[in-house]
């Protein structure tokens, strides 16, 4: 019995060593930095509980991403509830504390693009993030999302069309300020 338990623990530690960085990055890309580590721990808790069901490589990480999607989704719902509470506090003249995790140094254009991505519908957002931020192949995304490959293709295509409409102003050249004529006062 002890041997079985040791084998399970060894397998878990091996999965941890191999994938925890990617899973942590997955969380950092989706939630505030101070929540990312907690969520990563929650994800690996589920992995531990289901260690006997975790498929071998190369499917292991896809399986963990599937768990991660659900854990982050639950967290996001809680965050939205908190945001609504913050909004009520603001209406009462009480300023909620600023979350330093949102003060990430990023160019304003990149921040605008990231906001546009986050404003996509939940399924489209997750697919775009898996594709463009986590750099997963579309076939893997289809497996994680439980969709056909063509459905993933369509959703990326349509999401990019939507982002193009929203982000069009970013690609327009900013007109130069008028130059004062020589001698003008």
């Amino acid at each position, binding site marked *: 019995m002890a041997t079985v*338990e040791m084998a399970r623990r060894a397998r878990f530690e091996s999965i941890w060593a191999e994938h*925890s*960085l*990617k899973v*942590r*990055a997955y969380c*950092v*890309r989706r939630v505030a930095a101070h*929540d990312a*580590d*907690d969520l*990563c*721990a*929650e994800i*690996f*808790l*589920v992995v*531990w*509980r*289901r260690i006997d*069901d975790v498929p071998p490589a190369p499917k292991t990480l896809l399986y963990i991403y*599937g*768990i991660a999607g*659900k*854990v982050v989704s*639950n967290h996001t719902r809680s965050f939205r509830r908190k945001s609504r509470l913050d909004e009520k506090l603001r209406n009462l003249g009480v300023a909620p504390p600023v979350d330093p995790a949102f003060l*990430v140094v*990023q160019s304003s*254009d*990149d*921040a605008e*693009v*990231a906001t546009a*991505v986050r404003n996509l*519908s939940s399924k*489209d957002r997750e697919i*775009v993030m898996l594709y*463009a*931020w986590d750099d997963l192949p579309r*076939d893997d995304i*289809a*497996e994680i999302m*439980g*969709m*056909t*490959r*063509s*459905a993933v*293709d*369509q*959703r990326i*295509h*349509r999401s*990019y069309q*939507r*982002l*193009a409409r929203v*982000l*069009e102003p970013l*690609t327009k050249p900013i007109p130069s300020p008028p130059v004062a004529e020589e001698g003008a006062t």
Partner: protein
Amino acid sequence: MTHDQIDRMVRKANPLPDLNALEPVGASVLTTPLERRMEMQTDNRQVTEDPGQNRSRGPLVGIAAAAVILIAGLVFFLTRDDAQVAQPAPNATAISDEMDTPLAPGAYFVDTDGDEESSLGGTFVIEGAGWSSMGAGPRKVFGEGYVSLLIVEVDQVWSPACEAPAPIAAGTTAEDLANQFAAAGFTIQEAVSPVSAFGQSGYQLVVDVPGECTGTANPVWEGPTFGRFYHEPEGHVVEYWFLDVDDTPVMVEASWVPSSSEEEVAELQEVLDTLVITP
């Protein structure tokens, strides 16, 4: 903006482009609370939580959250399947050919050739309320607007749609048919491009329908099971897929109107996600 331009912008906006930017996973940050929880999982001992170690959750909240996550995860893994291989939903009902017949949530089959002996056609799943039949696919009306999906074979094409006095025979391959529609006189949003969709290979085309090409005076195509089709209103957006299904061109037409909201188009996409075309 092109697809590549958007792709570059989205990738550049990645909040964590380089994994190595993460500090090494510290045992004090992650492994301590995790190991403590693992111990709770393995030997069921009562654990006294040090409030200084787990700054965001008490042990009971952690256990409850983990239980919720476990159940959610379990449901997820029990209900997901290997859907990345396109398989039609089982037990599909033949869609009513009576226009505006309400469609209850469930799986539906559109017979594109009208031959009960063959399985050629499309199967899709409706999950929400408010959908009705267009004969060859579902439609959902939202106030003045609507979103719709048609799965058909095409016999005749009016090209250019806004001017042609008489139809011509439809192309006998997906590529021919795609090129006929591309030349139909609509405003092309996305040119014909090869695609793999709904379990088949073919070509995709996206168009806007200008005002002079709408109405009953300007038919666009005619099919054996649907009859004559025309667009209404102006600005109608149509996404076509022309698919070669065992040498038979099948056309999938998803469309919405200018007043359709993103949420409404998203409902259409949910249906498209389930569509599988079978020979």
